[in-house]
């Protein structure tokens, strides 16, 4: 890790994570927007940054992009302390709304932003990134006339002009219709497939679940969970729940109440669909339950794993056991 100044765009310190945040705190007056937040984004990750509105996501991203100065803590991009524009070589992205010049055409926006980068020879041409995000046909139009989805895509095009290795996307599907969301997600998958490390913030769990391999959850400026997507989701879900459908609910209930099975029935008789039983299994999962039912001669029509309600899960993570949690 040489301390010598590296020319912009020089290969980053090899092996260092794309982003390391250590103990980041940002106060605005007496308001603590982010408190002692640490996270690590490894190269190649599609890293989900999840939290409700006002949880400090955007402030964290602003600190990463050099727009706000941390009150304390450290941010490293590819191993280099983030300070000044030259340390952001290889980093691109946007925070909150796309922030484009509404009175300029899409092409002029890109020309202007390209001029604000000291571009290397062989940087991606403007027409190329317009093509990538599917805006070639509308490149002459003023951004003012663009839909929200087109603006989001143009913001991504602007980021791609920097040939980033690390792309920061803050709520890229915010305000989009389903087709717009699908386009953006397809684009994120494609970029990730091309080897970009992507840091994606969202308040939509389903989006994070579809796109990300690792995830951090923040609430009120604090990190409440971080890790692989599955671990974090499973950790938050607790024991898996199931829906059982049978023609003989009474016998089934009796079989399930057997001590030692550890199953727990969550709905009263007659509550829900006819013949429906909602249950939480014991620590060993569904196997012992099925065996017990079959042994009791209960015909099982279906035993369906219950997806923990994503919203429930989210609320549990961000409010339930979180430090400083409670009503707002």
């Amino acid at each position, binding site marked *: 890790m040489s301390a010598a100044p590296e020319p912009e765009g020089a290969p980053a310190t090899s092996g260092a994570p794309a982003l390391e945040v250590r103990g980041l705190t940002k106060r605005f007056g007496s308001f603590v927007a982010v408190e002692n937040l640490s996270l690590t984004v490894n190269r190649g990750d599609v890293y989900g940054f999840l939290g409700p509105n006002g949880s400090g996501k955007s402030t964290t991203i602003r600190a990463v992009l050099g727009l706000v100065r941390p009150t304390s803590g450290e941010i490293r991009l590819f191993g280099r302390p983030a300070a000044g524009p030259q340390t952001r070589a290889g980093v691109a992205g946007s925070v909150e709304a796309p922030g484009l010049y509404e009175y300029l055409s899409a092409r002029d926006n890109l020309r202007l932003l390209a001029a604000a*980068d000291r571009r290397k020879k062989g940087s991606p041409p403007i027409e190329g990134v317009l093509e990538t995000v599917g805006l070639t046909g509308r490149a002459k139009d003023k951004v003012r006339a663009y839909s929200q989805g087109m603006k989001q895509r143009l913001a991504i095009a602007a980021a791609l002009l920097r040939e980033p290795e690390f792309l920061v996307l803050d709520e890229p599907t915010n305000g989009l219709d389903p087709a717009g969301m699908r386009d953006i997600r397809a684009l994120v998958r494609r970029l990730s497939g091309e080897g970009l490390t992507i840091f994606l913030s969202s308040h939509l769990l389903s989006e994070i679940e579809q796109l990300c391999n690792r995830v951090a959850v923040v609430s009120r400026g604090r990190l409440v969970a971080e890790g692989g997507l599955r671990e974090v989701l499973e950790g938050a879900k607790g024991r898996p729940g199931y829906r059982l459908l049978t023609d003989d609910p009474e016998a089934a209930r009796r079989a399930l109440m057997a001590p030692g099975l550890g199953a727990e029935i969550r709905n009263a008789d007659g509550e829900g669909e006819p013949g429906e039983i909602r249950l939480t299994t014991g620590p060993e999962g569904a196997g012992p339950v099925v065996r017990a039912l079959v042994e009791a001669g209960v015909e099982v029509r279906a035993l369906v794993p219950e997806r923990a309600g994503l919203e429930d899960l989210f609320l549990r993570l961000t409010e339930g056991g979180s430090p400083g949690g409670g009503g707002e």
Partner: protein
Amino acid sequence: MMVRWEVFKLLRQRRTFLGLGSAALVPLVFLAAVEIIGGGPEAGEAPFAAQLLGNGLVIPLVTLAFGSVVLLPLLTVLVAGDAVAGEVSGGTLKTILGRSVGRSGLFWSKAAAVGLYTLAVVGVFVGVGLAAGWLAIGFRPLAGLGGAPIPVGQVLALIVLGAGLVALPLLALAAFALLLSVATQNSVASVVGGVVLILLLQLVSSLGLGGVLDPYLLTEQFSAWLNLMREPIDWAPIVASVWVSAAWAGVSLLAAWAVFVRRDVLS
């Protein structure tokens, strides 16, 4: 260099053309008024007015004297006050600062573009006045205050120099409006703030409240060019005005720069 692109942005905004257009329009309106009065029956009865109105060179001189009181300062702060605030409200400041350009580089590019706009306002204002005066009335030697007529070429040189001397305090005002733009991050507040500064300073000096500070008020510098019309030219107040304007500009720019490079960008 980013100056080019800052100018490019200005040239794509209506605000810029509102400023330049007004600078072009006012001399024309004045000329039209002069033409209407000049054609009236009383024209011959007032020799001073007749002589004044019978010379196209008077148009830029009179408009410059009037324009430097409120119009030119207003047109200057209109764009200077928006320079940073407009990018904050448009959400583009965070975008441009996410590129490789540093904050200092961006700031000085903006300052330069605002300066070029200010010079353009003065240039258009005086240029249109000259052109209109020449085409509609024609140039002839101007009766000097000392009595001897001043040749056309010399008057033209004095007008250009006078425009330059008005431009200096305007540039200082632009710098102050840029400081307001950086500090308030609000375009309207910056424009209004710049105008209020001008009106306030004019009030202070017209009520004689300035005392010893009077010569250092920014508004006083807008009339320094009138000393060019004396015979002989009184250079001392002109030189003083250059320094005072430079001091206002320098302090404002440095303060604006210091705030701009440190400030958190939250829009």
